[in-house]
């Protein structure tokens, strides 16, 4: 069973390596032929849904702090942690970050009425609990080279639950 898992990890790595290689070729080729980049799209990274969920969680904190600045002292460090996680995930995903993910709404920037709405603390607490559990699951199934980052994010979210409780 473990051998099988190892095999999957290796094959995914191989696919990733191939994807990065292709992207490199496409980027180099783009200088001579602008059309070639589009013909070698990087396949979507399996972390994209986790990235989007992280962006949505960050958006809820930004909206809540914007609506209730008095909560900035308590919620600010948590918001900052989610933002740092988002940046780390973007670096980890690299060229596999899909456009939909990178354009995830941010309440602070857009001011769009369809963006994230301010949430009561109980709702943020429930969201953190769910997010901590989700990060743990993603950590357990990710390739080993991503386990430390994802485990750290899971741990951070668990500490947010403590602070919000």
């Amino acid at each position, binding site marked *: 069973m473990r051998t099988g898992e190892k095999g999957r990890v290796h094959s995914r790595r191989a696919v990733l390596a191939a994807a990065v290689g292709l992207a490199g070729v496409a980027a180099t080729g783009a200088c001579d032929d602008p059309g070639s980049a589009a013909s070698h799209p990087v396949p979507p990274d399996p972390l994209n849904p986790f990235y989007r969920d992280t962006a949505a969680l960050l958006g809820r904190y930004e909206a809540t702090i914007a609506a209730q600045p008095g909560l900035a002292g308590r919620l600010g460090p948590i918001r900052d942690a989610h933002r740092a996680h988002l940046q780390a995930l973007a670096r980890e995903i690299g060229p596999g970050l899909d456009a939909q993910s990178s354009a995830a709404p941010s309440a602070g920037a857009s001011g769009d009425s369809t963006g994230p709405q301010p949430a009561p603390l109980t709702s943020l607490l429930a969201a953190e609990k769910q997010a901590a559990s989700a990060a743990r699951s993603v950590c357990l199934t990710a390739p080993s080279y991503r386990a*430390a980052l994802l485990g750290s994010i*899971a741990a951070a979210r668990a500490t947010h639950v403590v602070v919000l409780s």
Partner: protein
Amino acid sequence: MTAERLADALRAEHAAIYAYGVLGARLDAATLPVATAAEAAHRQRRDALILRLNALHATAPPAEPAYALPAPVTDRASALTLMIGVEERCAGVWGQALAAVSGDDRQLAVDALTDCAVRATRARTLAGVTPATVPFPGR
């Protein structure tokens, strides 16, 4: 690789158990139960690691008779500072183990890392350290 990282984690758990023996004596009645529960959790991880290393036919490093502490523990404040440091150090060791283990061992590592991070946050809160959280526990 797996056994080496788990042995590192066991050494850190031994050291944590020693530290709690020292710092518990300097805590007040309100804070002591937090440290007592933390020490019990570290003992549980230690026992799980010894079993796991035995199953891997790897050597489980024993506890040292004593450990050098980073600073003297003379009162509640210095006891809580040590508790924060111990949990951060354990989180770091478990975080390093994560990349080297898989399957049930990865579950052990991520849960241990999470528990260390949670205890560090509780200790920072008791010590009045703000913020009580860090963005990347164990990194």
